[in-house]
């Protein structure tokens, strides 16, 4: 299984810039579980950048266990399944939370 750092730093490669035109947001991953950590994802001018720690005030906070974030971005478990099972929580405008899920080319497993 990939580490949370590998997965987070791979996000710019999964990002669909054409879906984020004009959608500028700061998103914080506030994670517990196997690899407790915080990561700040900035989407600005159709570019996604990642920094370790909470470096900016977020508009959307995604919290849960690190292994579930890994499962989501490696395509092992669909995002909505994790959210519906309350394994991941999103704090912020629901519009942003739903739109966020559509910004990624998630790998399809099996």
């Amino acid at each position, binding site marked *: 299984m990939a580490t949370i750092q590998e997965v987070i730093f791979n996000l710019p490669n999964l990002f669909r810039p054409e879906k984020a035109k004009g959608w500028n947001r700061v998103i914080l991953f506030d994670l517990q579980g196997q690899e407790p950590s915080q990561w700040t994802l900035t989407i600005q001018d159709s570019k996604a950048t990642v920094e370790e720690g909470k470096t900016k005030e977020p508009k959307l906070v995604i919290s849960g266990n690190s292994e579930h974030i890994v499962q989501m971005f490696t395509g092992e478990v669909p995002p909505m399944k994790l959210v519906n099972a309350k394994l991941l929580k999103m704090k912020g405008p629901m519009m942003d939370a*739903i739109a966020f899920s559509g910004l990624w080319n998630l790998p399809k497993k099996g």
Partner: protein
Amino acid sequence: METGIISYGVAIPRRRITAQEIWDTWKNLATSFFDLLSISERGVTGPEEDTLTLGVAAARQAIERSGVAPERIGAILFGSGTSPYATKAAATVVVDALGLPNHTLATDIQCADKSGSTALWLAAGMIEAGLVENALVIGADTINRHTPPGMVLEYVASAGAVAFVLGKEKPIATLEAWASHSHDQNDYFRVEGERYIQPGAGFYGWVANWGLLDHVVPAGKALFEKTGLRPEDFSKFAVPQKTGLRPLMTMGQLNLEMMQVLPYVLTSQIGDCGAAGVLLSLAHILDFAEPGERIGVLDYGAGAGCEAWSIVCTDALEQRRPQQGLVVELLDDKIMVDYATMLKYEQKLLQSPHRLSNFY
């Protein structure tokens, strides 16, 4: 249709207030609704701003961006449900404020939140009929001024204006098709002599949105039937966004994809801009659109009906794309105010007749 949008302009209040700041005073809504309804910040008009000043600012920008000489504008249609005047036209003030020719046909269109869209299609009809060469259309509202303190709509009640210069000469987007649906339904209304908007139902849940789907769905379906287009033929949609629930309801009933709609919903950043709400979302889409993109607009006005329309972006968009004053820039340029300041600016406090003097 040859007629299209030659340019557009936008004005929103720079001052904002957070939903939390309002809640700290009233505590009249479970704060869990903020995320559910995508409520976060909304505009606060300053003491020098009203529906007209916002409309003039948006119109000035649209005219500057158009390159169209003012004397070639044959009609100005000012769409608003919150004109500062009950009887006289606001459009005539715009004529003088912008130095437009006095032979311009100037009139107001009052049709709730869809006033701007209705004005736009009336103006397009005049251009297509050859009555005028170009038209200036404005959708503007100050819903905030017309929402009483303590009413839950206060969390989203905002203000803004969007203006379009229409014509046939090198439009950035051509108007493609239009469909409408209207019947009487008193979901939100303001009666003669009253300052504040009344909700026909509640703020949250089905009853709060009871007029929406009754109009948006038949109008949207009529547009699809009229054009033979399907939802997937559109790249993006600007949809009603009084709260974040409305885009979801619209999306679900018309089978729109979430990424056609949700990235262009601005509720959490600016609130409900009334007649400028859907048009602000359209301006935001146009700021980043590409030639050839087909964009759908579903503009609903409470108790007024729904205009469903489509545009197709042209190659001229590439050359005349706004380089500054983008909607995202305006949204980020803000001054936060507290609740008391908001009440003062929105003229909701009893004021001393001596407030402007230093006599005490």
